[in-house]
C-alpha cells in the first residue's frame, strides 16, 4: 500500500534527456523523456495495444513510437498515428502523469491528475541562498521496503553501531530523544552538550573546541526524510531559533520513492550553510554519504529479508518510538485516501 496523492521523485533532472527512460514507481511502470522544449513528460509505460513498454520504442521529436507496430503517442498520451490502419481507435491512449522539476529533481504526481498541485512539492529552505553549499547528491536502489529506510532515518541510535567509521561519536547514544508528532510526520531530536567535534565534521565546522550539537531526524509523508545536524560552540546550543554566528548547519535531504513493496529508490543531497563554491568539500561530503548509505543498505536489505521470513515474533524497543508513530500517521493517511 502506498500513499498515491503525493509528488515522488522519478529521477534527477540530469538523468532525463532526449531519450526514453523506464521507471517503476509505486509498482506502476512509467516512461519519462524530455521534450524538445525542455519539459519532462511521464506516461504509462505500456502501449494500449499489447502492453509492450513504450520505453522499448523510439522517441521521434516529441512523439513516442511503440516498438511493436509503430503506434505513436504525444505528450497528452493520445495516439496520433496507427500506421497499420486508416483510422485511429479513439480509445487508443496511455495514462499521463503530471511531472514537474524542482531542486534538480523530476517529481511525478502519482494520484488523480486533477489534484496535482505543484505548490505541494516538498520545500527546501535556502535552496537559492548563495551563502549555502550543496553536494551533487546521488541515487541508490535498495532491496528493501521503503519504510525500513524511513524507520532508519528516524533512529539516531543506529549511528553508533552502523556508522562507526563515519558519523558515530561518543555521547551520541545516551542523551534522551525528544519526539514530536505532527499531522504529517514525526521529528526525533536532541541537543547534546559539550562534545568533541566528530572527526567527520571537525574540518568543516568554522570554530574550534568543543561543541553543542543538534541531531534532528524528521520524516514527513509520504517518505521525505530530513536529517539536520547543527554544530555550535559549546555553551551556545539548545535553541535553533537563535543560532550562534559560527554555527554549522548541515541538512541531508533523503527522498524515498518506492519502486514496489520490496525495492526503493533513495535520492539524496546535502545542503549546508557555508562553502558554497568549494567543490572539494562538496565531493567529500557526497562520497561520505555514499559510504554511509551503503552501510545502511547492507543492514536494511538484511532486515527486509529477515522480517519477510520471520519464524518467531519481532519485538519493539524504546528506540522504535519515533518510527512506530510515523508508520501510524502514514497508515492513517493511506486509509483516508482509500476511503475517498
Amino acid at each position, binding site marked *: 500500500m502506498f500513499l498515491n496523492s503525493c509528488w515522488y521523485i522519478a529521477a534527477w533532472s540530469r538523468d532525463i534527456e532526449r531519450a526514453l527512460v523506464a521507471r517503476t514507481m509505486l509498482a506502476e511502470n512509467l516512461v519519462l523523456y524530455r521534450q524538445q522544449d525542455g519539459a519532462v513528460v511521464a506516461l504509462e509505460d505500456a502501449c494500449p495495444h499489447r502492453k509492450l513498454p513504450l520505453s522499448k520504442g523510439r522517441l521521434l521529436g516529441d512523439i513516442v513510437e511503440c516498438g511493436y507496430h509503430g503506434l505513436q503517442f504525444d505528450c497528452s498520451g493520445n495516439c496520433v498515428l496507427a500506421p497499420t490502419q486508416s483510422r485511429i481507435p479513439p480509445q487508443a491512449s496511455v495514462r499521463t502523469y503530471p511531472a514537474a522539476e524542482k531542486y534538480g529533481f523530476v517529481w511525478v504526481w502519482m494520484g488523480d491528475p486533477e489534484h496535482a498541485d505543484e505548490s505541494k512539492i516538498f520545500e527546501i529552505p535556502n535552496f537559492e541562498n548563495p551563502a549555502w553549499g550543496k553536494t551533487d547528491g546521488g541515487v541508490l536502489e535498495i532491496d528493501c521496503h521503503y519504510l525500513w529506510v524511513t524507520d532508519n532515518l528516524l533512529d539516531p541510535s543506529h549511528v553508533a553501531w552502523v556508522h562507526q567509521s563515519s558519523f558515530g561519536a561518543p555521547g551520541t547514544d545516551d542523551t534522551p530523544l525528544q519526539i514530536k508528532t505532527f499531522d504529517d510526520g514525526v521529528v526525533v531530536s536532541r541537543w547534546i552538550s559539550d562534545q568533541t567535534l566528530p572527526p567527520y565534521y571537525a574540518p568543516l565546522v568554522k570554530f574550534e573546541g568543543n561543541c553543542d550539537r543538534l541531531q534532528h531526524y524528521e520524516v514527513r509523508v509520504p517518505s521525505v526524510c530530513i536529517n539536520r545536524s547543527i554544530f555550535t560552540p559549546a555553551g551556545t546550543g539548545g535553541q535553533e531559533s537563535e543560532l550562534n554566528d559560527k554555527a554549522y548547519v548541515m541538512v541531508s535531504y533523503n527522498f524515498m520513492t518506492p519502486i514496489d513493496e520490496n525495492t526503493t529508490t533513495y535520492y539524496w543531497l546535502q545542503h549546508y550553510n557555508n562553502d558554497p563554491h568549494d567543490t572539494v568539500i562538496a565531493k567529500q561530503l557526497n562520497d561520505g554519504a555514499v559510504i554511509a548509505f551503503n552501510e545502511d543498505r547492507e543492514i536494511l536489505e538484511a532486515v527486509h529479508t529477515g522480517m519477510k521470513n520471520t519464524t518467531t515474533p519481532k519485538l519493539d524497543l524504546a528506540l*522504535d518510538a519515533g518510527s512506530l508513530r510515523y508508520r501510524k500517521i502514514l497508515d492513517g493517511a493511506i486509509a483516508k485516501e482509500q476511503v475517498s
Partner: protein
Amino acid sequence: MSENKPTQDDARDEPPTISGDVPLVTFSSSGIQVPWLGNHESLLELAEANGLSPEFSCRAGVCNTCECSISSGDVSYLDEPLSMPEDGRALICCSIPDGDITLDL
C-alpha cells in the same frame, strides 16, 4: 498497610486508602498493596521495585506488551500511547496512578 489480601469484590468497590493524599496501588493477583509516593517513573517501575516482573518491551508506550487490566481506578499517561488500550486496560510503562488503582498483576 492492610494485612488482608484484597478480594476481587473489595477491589471493585472503593479500595481502602492509607492516607488521603497519596494514591494506593493494589496489585491484586500478587496481593501487594503500596502507596504511590512519586519516587518511581511509572507503574511498571513501582511493580518492579516491589518484586514483580510484568512483561514489557519498549517502555515507551509504543508496543503494548505491558498492557494489563485495571479493575478499579485510572491511570494518567506520561507519553501518549501509540495505540490506546480499551477501557479497563492500561499501559503501565508510561503511566502513573490517577488516584487509587487496582491492577491485575
